């Protein structure tokens, strides 16, 4: 008769494994979340992919400085907002300000602008150089499906002297709730009444066709592999992946080169910052008085509850305070313009409300 494995041995082995896992789990190092009193050693946040490179850059120096580990999930502004509403994270990052209904549901969330960047129009077409000029109308036409080929006369009119192939345009959009979508659709809604009525502006809209990508990274992936594609993407990702990008017309009729200077010019129009903190400061399509302003600049906000349930409140205050002051110097390398002084002081004021 063959050897029999005693049932007791099997059960015992299973129990032993379970205990081993339990010990490893409870005694293990890493980002455990201590509840209640005691200093908080880690903060979890989620949201905007636009600001993700900057937050990622902040983790190492901040851990050295304050001993707090920042875990950040770049899941998109929309998902970030949902996370903080559900309080499944300590803070959220969104490039889109909270809508009125979101603010109500969030029950006392503060919206603090902590980064300043922009959305670009990037494209990947064989035979077309970087630096094509677009107007809001043309872009709206592309994404509503009215302009279907790169050689369309409306694009050619803006770019005389550039040889444009007959390739079909493939507009790429974000599938996740995105602050870049919000900024881009705000601009397009202001440029085109048809776009405003057909699609509207929000973190998630109903795009007619095209291809969807998940996050700025996913959109980049689609862009890189699809000839003829055009997408709206955060500036840091465009530069990092060396995508061709277009020049977008601002209200003054100019086509400023996207970069820290044109972004800062867009922010320079801010004279006062609302301290209530929930209305957001839109930089999209700044008025013609700023000829050097890039029309798709956007603030990125950190969303924190006024009263955190754990001891995270103090830690959050320190972190955000550091982010809007010392943290800003990591920005320019990643194409984030420094926050205007008015915004920084307004932020510090708002932060006082955090418990």
């Amino acid at each position, binding site marked *: 008769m063959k050897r029999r494995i005693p049932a007791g041995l099997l059960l015992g082995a299973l129990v032993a494994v379970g205990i081993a896992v339990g010990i490893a789990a409870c005694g293990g190092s890493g980002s455990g979340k201590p509840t209640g009193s005691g200093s908080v050693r880690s903060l979890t946040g989620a949201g905007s992919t636009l600001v993700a490179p900057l937050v990622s850059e902040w983790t190492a120096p901040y851990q050295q400085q304050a001993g707090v580990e920042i875990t950040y999930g770049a*899941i*998109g502004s*929309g*998902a970030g*907002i*949902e*996370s903080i*509403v*559900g309080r499944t994270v300590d803070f959220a990052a969104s490039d889109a300000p909270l809508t009125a209904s*979101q603010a109500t*549901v969030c029950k006392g969330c503060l919206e603090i602008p902590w980064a300043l960047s922009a959305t670009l129009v990037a494209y990947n077409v064989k035979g077309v150089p970087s630096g094509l000029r677009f107007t809001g109308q043309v872009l709206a036409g592309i994404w509503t499906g009215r302009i279907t080929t790169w050689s369309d006369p409306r694009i050619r009119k803006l770019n005389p002297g550039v040889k444009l192939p007959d390739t*079909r345009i*493939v507009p790429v959009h974000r*599938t*996740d*709730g995105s602050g870049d979508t919000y900024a881009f659709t705000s601009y397009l809604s202001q440029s085109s009444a048809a776009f405003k009525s057909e*699609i*509207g*502006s*929000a*973190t*998630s*809209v*109903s*795009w*007619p*066709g*095209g*291809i*969807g*990508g*998940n996050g700025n990274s996913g959109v980049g*992936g*689609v862009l890189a*592999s*699809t*000839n*003829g594609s055009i997408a709206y993407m955060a500036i840091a990702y465009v530069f990092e992946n060396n995508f061709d990008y277009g020049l977008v017309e601002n209200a003054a009729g100019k086509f400023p080169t996207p970069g820290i200077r044109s972004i800062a010019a867009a922010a320079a129009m801010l004279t006062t910052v609302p301290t209530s903190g929930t209305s957001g400061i839109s930089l999209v399509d700044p008025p013609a008085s700023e000829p050097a302003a890039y029309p798709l600049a956007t603030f990125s906000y950190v969303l924190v509850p006024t009263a955190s349930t754990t001891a995270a409140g103090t830690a959050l205050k320190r972190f955000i305070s550091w982010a809007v002051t010392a943290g800003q110097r990591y920005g320019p390398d990643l194409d984030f313009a420094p926050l205007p002084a008015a915004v920084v002081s307004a932020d510090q004021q708002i932060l006082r409300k955090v418990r």
Partner: protein
Amino acid sequence: MTTSTPTPEVSGRDRNPFLARTKLADKLGERGLRICTFLAALLAVALVVWIVCKLVHSAWPAIDRFGLAFVVHRVWDPVTGQFGALPFLYGTALSSLLALLVATPVAIAIAIYLTELAPSFLRKPVAMLVELLAAIPSVILGLWGILVLGPFLGNHLEPFLKSFLGWLPLFSGTPSPYGMLNASIILTIMVLPIITSVTREVFQTTPVADKEGALALGATRWEMIKLVVLPQARPGLVGAVMLGLGRAIGEAIAVTQVIGNAAQIKASLFASGGTAAAQIASDFPSANPGVWQASLIYLAVILLVFSALANIAARLIVRHGTVR
């Protein structure tokens, strides 16, 4: 000789060390095992009920608002709060049906090979290799779909199809690495092993006498298969296809990686689209609790119902249809 229910009075029992246990241990053990296993089974059943109830409950705001018209509305718009499942149900149906259309004949052919044609030393290895297709994690198939299949489709196969068959609406449109064709191929690879293994099992239950009888009467191998094996395998085949269908409609990750995620209904296979499962995967984290999230969970409920039906139908058909 001891009786089957030992009593304390029987002396032989006390002398046999193997049976020298106390009555208490027996009572506890019997009751304990019964209770533990019963609780486990109860928990399993309760889990199913809980999942269904919780999902229907969470989907209720959407079910209430849209009712059954949800499945025919075309618009999925978070801005206006209008949610309709039609583009995703269309995508699910199209990609799954295409996958089944391709996978079923191939699966039958492979099953015929494995049961009739293959030399006996090849049978087990080839069968195992086909089943290993099912073991490939879907995220890896999706990775392969994006980085290997996608460029092949976008740069070679789709332009080729368009140049020869472009007059068909199926192959009109712009070749693209993402889209319905890519997703359908991935799904075909996923359902093929499932249909093959069930079909093979069903073929193996054909009474040998019938097969030999046909051959003895002069039928060629193909005629024997056509006249003897296939007819009695029909219910099993239907079951196999149902199982494959259940698998195909529920796949979210690999599909969302390659299908392009656009809520549109296009005839062309080159166009991007969406399926219900893929839409849940891409939209759910951003959906605010309310009509939007409830609509996504409504999609999940629809998926749940159909894949549960497919699985149950498959089990019933296969169980009743095969001669064991």
